[in-house]
């Protein structure tokens, strides 16, 4: 169990109000689901992202709300939803295989207790990703899922964005609703997810129908995107800066006036630097000089250990196999005396260091079969979104304008995640599997509505041959 830290609050009344509010909100959503069972699925998305049970002190904290919402969503779909439009895609099969393989490695894990604990939330994320596309049968459902994912993540992003803007950031210091360093509340993870959300926010602002495009939607979307960009600044997570770079590069591809856009981006970046906190620029400078940075040197040492481990254990060591590592690495310690600077090499010995990379996380925990399945799942997603984009981008008909931009947004979000994953261990992050579920749903939906129409059977009437008498 992750250690939970209680939040300090000034007024007990405020605690009660927040608790009652969150409980009423969840109950309200569950009640709406009685009329529209799809709302239960959205409730699960919300609970899995925001984790209101962590914000709550007594009401929601004492109930397994996540399990209740998941059971309601699944049973609602199973019992009430029509199934004729649901399709099982190849990528869902890949997730099912990854799930089964993770289950197997958990049984034979190097650290069975820790592996079982990680399995307890990973299986839910994977099962939900398999289930989600089956329910995404309409355009509005795709939009509703995207909207709930974005607005749920926004509750963490807005608070982080405002605190950063008011100067409350710092590495490991930005407090996001709860003092809990798990799930989306971990600084590197929220940095990556916040930047990956930007393409989805922009899609919703342009093509949304629940909140149709108007000035209020545009202002909110712009402010939320700004908050997303502030999160990597506030958390001082270097991964976030990298993700922003990926986003800027990817956006160039679809921008209409590329040179103007590139110029504006460069000007904005230069104009921002003086406003960044000194601690932030100091930390970002360590990106290029990793030998003086312990965190970066640890990563390289752990990755080398994992590579060697995978040669000895090609089928993986199960969840949390990194706990068995003992690493020794060298860092440079510059010492300045007067005008001269001497660099001393210091050896540091460390153990049980986490992977700090989704790729090595997969390789160490699930071995080659696991990483091959995962890479297949991810690369196929990029390729499928590209197929949709190319197929729909030149269409001008009514109701044919939203598909290519959504595919592009999902592709960009995934690409940002894949680059961020190089330096953060988020291989099983539920938010990303929801994104994959959305991709599968979009692929399946468009494949169904855009399928070739069955050819009409032509009946040729042949003249009756009358035999000559």
């Amino acid at each position: 169990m992750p250690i939970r830290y209680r939040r300090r609050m000034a007024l007990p009344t405020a605690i009660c109000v927040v608790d009652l509010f969150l409980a009423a909100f969840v109950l309200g959503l569950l009640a709406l689901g009685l009329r529209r069972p799809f709302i239960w699925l959205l409730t699960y998305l919300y609970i899995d992202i925001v984790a209101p049970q962590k914000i709550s002190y007594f009401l929601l904290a004492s109930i397994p709300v996540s399990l209740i919402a998941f059971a309601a969503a699944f049973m609602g779909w199973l019992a009430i939803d029509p199934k004729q439009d649901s399709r099982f895609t190849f990528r869902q099969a890949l997730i099912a295989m990854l799930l089964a393989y993770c289950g197997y490695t958990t049984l034979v894990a190097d650290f069975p207790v820790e592996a079982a604990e990680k399995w307890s939330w990973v299986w839910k994320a994977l099962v939900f990703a398999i289930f989600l596309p089956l329910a995404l049968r309409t355009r509005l459902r795709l939009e509703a899922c995207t909207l709930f994912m974005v607005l749920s993540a926004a509750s963490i992003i807005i608070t982080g964005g405002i605190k950063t803007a008011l100067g409350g950031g710092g590495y490991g210091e930005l407090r996001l609703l709860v003092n809990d360093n798990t799930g989306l509340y971990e600084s590197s993870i929220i940095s990556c997810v916040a930047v990956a959300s930007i393409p989805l926010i922009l899609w919703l602002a342009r093509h949304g129908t629940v909140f149709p495009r108007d000035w209020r939607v545009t202002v909110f979307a712009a402010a939320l995107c700004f908050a997303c960009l502030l999160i990597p600044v506030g958390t001082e997570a270097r991964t976030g800066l990298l993700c922003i770079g990926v986003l800027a590069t990817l956006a160039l591809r679809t921008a209409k006036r590329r040179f103007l856009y590139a110029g504006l981006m460069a000007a904005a970046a230069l104009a921002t630097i003086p406003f960044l906190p000194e601690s932030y620029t100091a930390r970002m400078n360590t990106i290029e000089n990793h030998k003086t940075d312990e965190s970066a040197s640890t990563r390289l040492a752990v990755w080398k250990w994992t590579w060697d481990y995978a040669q000895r254990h090609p089928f993986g060591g199960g969840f949390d196999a990194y706990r068995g590592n003992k690493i020794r690495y060298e860092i440079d310690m510059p010492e300045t005396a007067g005008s001269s600077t001497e660099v001393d090499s210091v050896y540091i010995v460390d153990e049980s260091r986490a992977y700090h990379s989704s790729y090595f996380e997969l390789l160490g925990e699930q071995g080659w079969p696991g990483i091959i399945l995962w890479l297949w799942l991810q690369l196929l997603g990029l390729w499928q979104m590209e197929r949709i984009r190319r197929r729909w981008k030149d269409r001008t008909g009514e109701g044919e304008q939203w598909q290519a931009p959504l595919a592009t947004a999902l592709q960009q979000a995934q690409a940002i995640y894949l680059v961020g994953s190089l330096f953060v261990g988020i291989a099983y992050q539920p938010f990303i599997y929801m994104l994959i579920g959305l991709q599968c749903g979009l692929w399946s939906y468009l494949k169904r509505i855009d399928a070739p129409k069955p050819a009409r059977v032509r009946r040729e009437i042949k003249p009756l041959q009358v035999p000559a008498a």
Partner: protein
Amino acid sequence: MIDYFAIALTHFLLALAAWRLMARDDLDADPVSPADGPADGDLRG
């Protein structure tokens, strides 16, 4: 205070979205099938 503002704003929008979805028939079935569009290729993965 910032936490309360963020929670209140996003939860209000989530609630409004859920409420609006309740009134939409196209949540459970697309009103007009876009299958009338071009239908000359396949999308297989």
